[in-house]
C-alpha cells in the first residue's frame, strides 16, 4: 500500500532528513508557543490557564446578564495571579524581567490574546488597567513611577484592588484626541485652571473603559484658555471632591467592561499628581497610544481566535447527513481561510510588539489589520454555521459583537490608517 500520510512517510527519511522536518502533531497554538523564548512560553501558558479557569465559566452569562455582574471577584483573582501589576517588577509587581529588557509590550500582547480569546469584555475588564497605568510609566518621572506604580501594583497583588483607567475622549473630541491634525482644531471641553499648589479641573470625559470602577484615572486636560498643545496628564482619584461617574453606556459588545462618563466639577488636583511635565500631555498621550494600539491588535487577535475556535468546535460536534461538518471539504476550506487570517493577524501583532519600544506606524498597522481580521473571521464563523450563528448560546455572535468594537476604540481604523501615514510621511512618503 502506498503510504501517503506525511507524518508516517518521514519515517522513511534518513536521520538528518527527519531532524530537518517539522512534523510535530500539535496545535497551531503549540507551534506558535514553541517559537517564543522560554519565559514567554510559560507566560502564555499561564494566561491561557487563567482564562480557561476563570473566564470560560462566566463569559456567556455575563454578556447575557450584565446587570447582575459583579466584576470584583474576578478582578481580585486577576490581581492575585499577577495580571494587574505587570508594569512593575518583582517583588512588588509581576513584570517579566525578560519582557522589560527586550520588548515592552510583548507580555501584554500574549495576555490580551489569551484572555480575549475567551471573552472580549472580560478580557478588556482586566487589560484596561494596563492602559490606565501606562501614562505613569511613560510620563518619564522615576519618582512618580516608583510611588504610584508601586502602590497600585502592591494593592492589586496583595491588598485591596486598585484599578486605573485612561481618559482622553471628550464629547466633542473623539478622533481629534487620537490624531495630531485633529487635535490642533479640537473642540475641547475639559480644562485645568492653575491655582495655588495645583489645578482645578472642570469638564467631561466619555466612553471611559472601567471608568465606573477605577480608583485612579490618568486624565488629560488642556490648561484653561489653551488648546491641545497644553494637554497635561493628571492622576485623578475617584474620591476627589467634585469627581463623579455619569452615565454608563449600553454597548453592543465587550459588555463586561463598563464604558462610563466622567464628570469633573471643580476637582482640585495637587501638583504632585501632575504626571510628567505640565503641557507634556499630548506627547504622553501619543506615546501611550503607540503602546496601546498593539494591545488592541492583540485583543482583536484573541477575539478572532475565539471565533475560530468556536466555529471549529461547532463543526466537530455537529453533523449533516451523518457526517461531521468538519469532514466536509466546503467547511474545511472556510476553516482554513479563518486559520490563515488568524495566523496573519498574529504575525503582524507579534511583529509590532517585537521591537523593544513599539512605534506608531507599526502598532497602528497591526491594530487596523487585526481588528479588520477579527471582524472578518467573526463573519465567516457566523456564515459557516448558518442559523446557529445568531443564537447566543453558541457564543459565535458574541465574538462578532465584541470584534466590532476593536475597529473603533483606540482611534477608529480610519484614524489609525492616517496615523500610519503621518508616521511614515517624512521618511518615505514625501
Amino acid at each position, binding site marked *: 500500500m502506498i503510504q501517503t500520510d506525511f507524518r508516517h512517510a518521514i519515517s522513511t527519511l534518513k536521520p538528518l532528513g527527519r531532524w530537518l522536518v517539522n512534523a510535530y502533531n500539535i496545535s497551531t497554538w503549540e507551534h506558535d508557543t514553541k517559537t517564543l523564548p522560554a519565559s514567554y512560553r510559560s507566560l502564555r501558558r499561564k494566561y491561557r490557564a487563567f482564562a480557561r479557569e476563570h473566564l470560560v465559566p462566566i463569559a456567556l452569562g455575563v454578556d447575557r446578564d450584565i446587570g447582575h455582574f459583579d466584576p470584583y471577584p474576578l478582578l481580585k483573582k486577576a490581581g492575585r495571579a499577577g495580571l494587574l501589576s505587570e508594569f512593575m517588577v518583582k517583588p512588588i509587581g509581576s513584570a517579566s524581567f525578560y519582557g522589560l529588557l527586550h520588548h515592552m509590550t510583548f507580555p501584554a500582547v500574549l495576555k490580551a490574546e489569551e484572555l480575549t480569546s475567551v471573552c472580549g469584555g472580560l478580557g478588556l475588564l482586566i487589560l484596561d488597567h494596563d492602559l490606565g497605568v501606562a501614562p505613569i510609566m511613560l510620563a518619564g518621572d522615576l519618582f512618580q513611577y516608583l510611588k504610584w506604580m508601586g502602590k497600585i501594583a502592591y494593592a492589586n497583588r496583595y491588598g485591596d484592588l486598585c484599578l486605573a483607567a485612561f481618559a482622553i475622549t471628550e464629547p466633542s473630541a473623539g478622533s481629534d484626541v487620537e490624531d495630531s491634525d485633529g487635535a*490642533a482644531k479640537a473642540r475641547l471641553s475639559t480644562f485645568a485652571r492653575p491655582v495655588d499648589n495645583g489645578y482645578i479641573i472642570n469638564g467631561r470625559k466619555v466612553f471611559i473603559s472601567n471608568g465606573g470602577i477605577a480608583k485612579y484615572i490618568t486624565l488629560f486636560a488642556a490648561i484653561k484658555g489653551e488648546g491641545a498643545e497644553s494637554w497635561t496628564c493628571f492622576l485623578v482619584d475617584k474620591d476627589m471632591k467634585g469627581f463623579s461617574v455619569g452615565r454608563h453606556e449600553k*454597548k*453592543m459588545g465587550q459588555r463586561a467592561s463598563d464604558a462610563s462618563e466622567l464628570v469633573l466639577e471643580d476637582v482640585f488636583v495637587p501638583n504632585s499628581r501632575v504626571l510628567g511635565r505640565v503641557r507634556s500631555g499630548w506627547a504622553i498621550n501619543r506615546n501611550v497610544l503607540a503602546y496601546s494600539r498593539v494591545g488592541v491588535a492583540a485583543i482583536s487577535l484573541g477575539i478572532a481566535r475565539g471565533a475560530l475556535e468556536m466555529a471549529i468546535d461547532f463543526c466537530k460536534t455537529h453533523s449533516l447527513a451523518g457526517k461531521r461538518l468538519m469532514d*466536509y471539504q466546503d467547511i474545511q476550506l472556510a476553516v482554513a481561510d479563518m486559520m490563515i487570517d488568524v495566523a496573519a493577524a498574529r504575525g503582524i501583532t507579534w511583529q509590532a510588539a517585537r521591537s523593544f519600544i513599539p512605534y506608531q506606524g507599526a502598532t497602528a498597522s497591526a491594530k487596523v489589520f487585526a481588528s479588520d481580521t477579527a471582524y472578518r473571521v467573526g463573519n465567516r464563523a457566523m456564515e459557516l454555521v448558518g442559523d446557529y*450563528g*445568531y443564537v447566543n448560546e453558541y457564543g459565535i*455572535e458574541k465574538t462578532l459583537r465584541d470584534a466590532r468594537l476593536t475597529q*473603533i476604540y483606540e482611534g477608529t481604523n480610519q484614524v489609525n490608517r492616517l496615523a500610519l501615514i503621518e508616521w511614515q510621511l517624512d521618511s518615505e512618503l514625501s
Partner: protein
Amino acid sequence: MSSNRDGKGILSTEEQKAIEALASAFAKKTVQPMLSPAAGPDGDLSKVAAVLAEGARIGLLAEHGDGRPGAEMGIWGKVTLSIGPGLSVGLLKHISEACGGIGACFHAAGLGSLAADLFGLTGNGRLACIISDFDDFHVMPCLSSAETAFKRATIKGEWKGTSLVIEGSKKFQLQACQTASYVLIVPSRSGNTYTWVATIIPASDDRLKTSKVKGQMGMRAVEINTIEIDNISIDKQYVASDDNNNYVQLMYAYNLVGMTAVLTGIARGAIASAFSYARERYQGGDLIIRHPAIRLLIAESEMQVIAIESMLDGIAGHTPNDTPQGLVPYAAALKWIGSRGCVQAITDCLQVFGGYGYMEDYGMEKRLRDGQTLKSMAGPSVTHQHTVMDAREAWS
C-alpha cells in the same frame, strides 16, 4: 385598472406608489415610535403585536379571512401571483428601514398567506409558511425532485390510505407573533410515488409543538421557533399537491427575496442615519461629511445597496407563471450577495458614528445585529453557493 410595469393590467404605477407611501408612513408613524432607546436595545417589544395589528388593519400585513385587506394587496398578498414580488419588495424595504424585525414579521406572515393562495388552501388569520429543511447543503436537487427531497427532508408526509401523516421538525422557523396556522410544504410518499404537497395545520394542534429560540442576536421583533410535528394525520381533501415542484421552488425563492428586501431596507435606514449624522458631527475642524474617509464609507454603502436593489429589480416582475427553475439560483445569489453587501453597508455606516455607533442609543448597533442575524438565516452561505452551482450543472 391600468397596466403594471409588466403589462398585466393589475395594478397601476400610481396605485403601487400609493401603497408604498402607505408603508413609508406606517414605518414612520407606527413602527418608529416603538423603537425608543429608553425601552431597550430593540425598542418596546411588547408593542409588536399592536404594530402588526395596525399593519393588518391598513392592509399591509397579509392575513386570511373576511374583511382582511392585506391578503390581496399587502406584502406577499395575492396580487403577487399576477405581478410578481416587486411590490412586496418595495413595501418590505420601507418598513425595514425603520425596523428589520418588524419587516420580517410582515414577510413571514405574507409568505404564509401567499402559500395558501398558491396552493388554493383555505386559511384563517395570520399564517406562516413552513418548507421542510434538508439534511444537505445541496437544496437545489431536493427542491427539483420530490424523491430526493423526501430522502433528505426533516419534515415529510407519508400517505396512509386517504390520509397524509406528517412528521418531523424544522429549526429556525421565522414567524410573526400570533400566528394562527402553518402552511406546511413537504415532500410526501405514496408507495413509490413522490410529490411535494401542502396543507394547513392550526398552531393550536397539540401534536405541533413550538419552542422559541432563545437569545437571538437581533431581529427580536420576529419569532424564531423550532417546530416539531408528531404524526399529524390530514385527510386528502385538505392536501394540495405540487406536481411539478414549481410552487415549492417559488416559495423557497420568494423567502430569500423577501429576506434580502428586509436587509436592503435595514441598510437603507443605516445609510440615511449615517448621512444625517455626518452632517452634524464635527471632528478635525470640519463636519465629518467633508472628510474623504467618511465620504468613501457612505459612498461604498450606497454602491452596495444600489447593486443589490438592481438585483431585486431584476426579480420584481417574475410571476409564478414564469418558469421558476431559474428563480431559485437567482434568489440564492441575491441572498448571498445581498446579505454580504447590506451587512457591509450597515457596518460601514456604523463606523461613521465612531464610538456612538457602538452604543444602543443611536440604533446603529441594532441595525447591525438585525442585519447579521438575517444574513445567517436560511442556511449557511455554502448552501446558496451550491444552489447556484447545482443549477448551473443541471442546465449544462
